[in-house]
């Protein structure tokens, strides 16, 4: 882990003097390497390492703690601060039914996440309603309808083929069903597909969501920044769900996306079942990225 990697760098420095630019520089190269291995975007890694340098250089070497560990603490604290800060819950307040749009790249975990959010809402005493607004992917609507039925949630089963129409009718049905939160599952799409990004803007204009969640695959690499920047620019989003975090991907995308867009990670997907959703903990994420 990072601690042991930095021990070699500071071999000569135990218990005396100050962390100098020279001995910190070598540590920073190791830190940058570790961040890249963890899939942090290379520009974000560069910025981050600069911030660590500013905080670490000139620090007195503390007694009883290895200088390498001291630098790791600076790195960890800096990362927790970058990842955390604001309380990160979705905005589901407002006159019911409150619409929540769920968007993202193909296969990131949106449909599954909608079922998870419905379970999460039910536990909080809310009445969720699911709308399968993906008419493109084969059996996508079947998938959400089956998930809804398996978990006891109301779901829109109308025949419309246009996503905007599905959402409009879905919202009307949600009112009739006395639901108070509507989860709109959209089709996976590329951030560079202008036509499909425009479609999302039309959905947004139609349902006026209180929350747009960007669902991102936890194993995503450097593309995390392209995706987040484009979704922010072309649509806008209020929170991120990082999925498949029950695997061993380090999840550097969390730092990249937060750093570049300022949007908080709100949940982690941690399994295939509809109960596998956790609130996001900045300190746990920092430990995972720096492992």
């Amino acid at each position: 882990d990072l601690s042991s990697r930095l021990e070699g760098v500071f071999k000569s420095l135990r218990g005396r003097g100050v962390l100098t630019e020279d001995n910190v520089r070598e540590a920073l190269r190791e830190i940058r390497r570790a961040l890249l291995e963890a899939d942090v975007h290379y520009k974000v890694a560069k910025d981050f390492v600069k911030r660590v340098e500013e905080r670490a250089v000139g620090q007195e070497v503390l007694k009883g703690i290895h200088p390498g560990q001291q630098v790791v603490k600076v790195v960890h604290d800096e990362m927790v601060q970058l990842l955390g800060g604001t309380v990160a819950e979705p905005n589901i307040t407002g006159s019911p039914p409150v619409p929540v749009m769920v968007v993202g790249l193909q296969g990131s975990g949106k449909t599954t996440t909608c079922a998870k959010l419905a379970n999460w809402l039910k536990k909080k005493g809310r009445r969720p309603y699911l709308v399968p607004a993906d008419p493109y992917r084969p059996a996508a609507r079947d998938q959400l309808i089956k998930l809804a039925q398996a978990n006891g949630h109301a779901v829109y089963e109308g025949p419309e083929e246009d996503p905007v129409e599905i959402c409009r009718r879905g919202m009307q049905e949600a009112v009739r069903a006395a639901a108070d939160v509507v989860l709109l599952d959209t089709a996976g799409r590329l951030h560079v597909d202008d036509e499909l990004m425009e479609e999302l803007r039309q959905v947004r204009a139609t349902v006026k969501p209180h929350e747009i969640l960007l669902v991102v695959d936890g194993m995503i690499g450097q593309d995390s920044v392209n995706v987040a920047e484009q979704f922010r620019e072309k649509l806008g989003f209020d929170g991120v769900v990082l999925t498949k975090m029950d695997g061993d991907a380090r999840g550097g995308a969390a730092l990249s996306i937060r750093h570049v867009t300022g949007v908080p990670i709100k949940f982690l997907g941690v399994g295939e079942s509809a109960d596998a959703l956790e609130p996001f903990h900045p300190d746990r994420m920092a430990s995972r990225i720096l492992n």
Partner: protein
Amino acid sequence: VKGRSSFDEGMWEEIEELLLRSDTGAAVAEEIVDELRLASGRWGKPDAEQVFSQLRESIATRLGGEPVPLQLDGGEGPAVVLVIGVNGAGKTTSIGKLAARLSGEGKRVLVVAGDTYRMAAMEQLAVWADRADVPIVKGKEGADAAAVVWDGLEAGVRRGSDVILVDTAGRLHTKSGLMDELVKVRRVIEKRLPGAPHEVLLVLDGTTGQNAIQQARVFGESLGVTGLVLAKLDGTAKGGVVMAIRRELDVPVKLIGVGEKLEDLQDFDPAAFAEALAP
């Protein structure tokens, strides 16, 4: 970097960053830059075009230089292709595309809905089979995957299929119980058809970062992977991690997915890949 006539220190950093943002990872990026620096030392005063041409050659060479075909010769019986990978990578869609391609070449193709777990997985594959105009074998929802695959192979033999494409449920390589299930599926295939599976294709999401190496390692150790399918290369991700995988595990990329339509499947060409990564 292009459009400069001479090459300076800053350009090496730009090339390293080009590679890093293509998901090659730090180790491969450093190796390539070191290799280029060594080569350029012999050229006297290199220009950007020369360095980039060398860069592309280095990338293509690292990926085997030439396209590698699928092994679809089943001898007396059908050739079996087992398709595996983590959740949402693009397995089911890739099978649909491959079925259409092979069927278009005049082969008798059968697809087997080996994902008996995920909601609407069998229905999804059934739509693709219909689009590709090939028959499909499904089991009941929740049935044992190995049993369905066995039935599928039986059906393929009876029908005289040339190729059997087996879909499996997505699974994270960290879940040992699920990896065991996949090993059982492989054993069933080996038992029913000696020599099978003729291909074990690991589908990777083109946006995946360094975790793809671990996926290839673990799936490779348990199943023996014969080729990679790199899906979703029609986005902005470059899939450079396949160089790290080739370097460590020597597994070739055989196919790439470039969209969500039936025809969006291409042979992997190392030179074209290099061109896209370092234009």
